[in-house]
């Protein structure tokens, strides 16, 4: 048995000090200790992207990150994408164009799309497909998601 260790990190701009088991998954710490349940678990093995968060500016699968590795880091979850009541253009586009059905993949899809648009404000079709290739959806058939991202680019 290991003992818990103290770590410090920022989530959506807010600093947290926590006692954690070092190998605990970031996904579980976000959901169970910080009650940020917007981040979802699909597969738990890096395949589906439902658990996507941004870690120091890059998207990662939070199911594959042991929490000891985020000590001193800065994380953005789906709860930190909107500015107060003002939804991000990608979130608004998902609502307007039916980009979400059951919603399990949606937080990950939105973070991947937001990340894509930050790196590449005018993505081609291929760029969008590539940017979302690590995110699986069982409901929409992808076309509505794809359309939402295209519209989000146009509306910004």
């Amino acid at each position, binding site marked *: *048995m290991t003992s818990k260790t103290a770590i410090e990190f920022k989530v959506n701009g807010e600093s947290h000090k926590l006692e954690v088991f070092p190998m605990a998954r970031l996904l579980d710490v976000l959901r169970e200790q910080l009650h940020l349940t917007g981040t979802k678990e699909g597969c738990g093995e890096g395949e589906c992207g439902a658990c996507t968060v941004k870690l120091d500016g890059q998207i990662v*699968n939070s199911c*594959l990150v042991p929490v000891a*590795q985020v000590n001193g880091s800065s994380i953005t979850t789906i709860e930190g994408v909107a500015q107060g009541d003002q939804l991000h253009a990608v979130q608004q586009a998902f609502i307007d164009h039916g980009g979400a059905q059951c919603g399990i993949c949606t937080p990950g899809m939105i973070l*991947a799309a937001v990340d894509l648009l930050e790196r590449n404000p005018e993505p081609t079709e291929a760029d969008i497909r590539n*940017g979302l290739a690590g995110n699986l959806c069982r409901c929409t058939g992808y076309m509505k998601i794809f359309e939402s991202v295209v519209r989000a680019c146009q509306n910004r």
Partner: protein
Amino acid sequence: MRAYVPGYQLQTPRSLADALALIGNEPGVWKPFAGGTDLMVLLEAGRLPHRNYLNIWPLSELRGIEVTETHVTLGALTTYTDVQAHEVLRSEFPMLCQAANETGGLAIQNRGTLGGNIVNASPAADSPPALLAYDAEIELVSNRGARWLPYDGFHTGYKQMTMLPDELLSRIRLPRNTASLKHYYRKVGTRKAQAIAKVCIAAIARVENAVMTDVRVALGSVAPIVLRCKQTEDAIRGKALTDDSVNQARETLMREITPIDDVRSTASYRLRVAANLLVHFLLTARS
């Protein structure tokens, strides 16, 4: 079954020297933990018997890409995203960039490292064929010192390698001799992102007056290790690229590789596809 997380130790050393001292004092007790994209999957599946890990992710000594006149040297923690962003790699080692681009999705590319890919030692890994074709060398370090060795020969059998329990993989070095060569990389899988390869080839050629003057061929998922196909290279090196010599190389390859049936594909499919890829490479090099 999910793992019992409190049963695992993940310690963060302050420096590379610190890390080497720890694994040197207790060889075999501590194993490195880099981006975790292989280890966390095993953890989650309850298939990670080893308990004590050293968090090498923050060690800046193992990061960065350095370019000299003769070599490009990559830290073991170089991620697939780092590889694709690097200008010199993109222009001189395009197969490595393509391998990185076809590894997992973006979130995996942001975390997965070349060092982890090499030491995880999957015969189906996507970057090792490119590293073999580029004549990569690797550096192993311990608190006894450092040693460079050719990457070819590092893997000695399925998940077996010549790294000692007190050693870490620190750097990967590529000789800059690829300028006028033709590069050919193909990963065959069920889909482009996330899928593990059924067969993967990385090959380079120098063709002068329709004669193959230099050739290197490496394949993944066709043997217990990622394989540099030396017999196949010998069969075609120095020869004019005719239908006959191409066919001879093809037959040599089919004897040199030993693919198996598994969940992703069958031995006969892999044999056929590997042979077709070789022929396509040779015909592309000829044209």
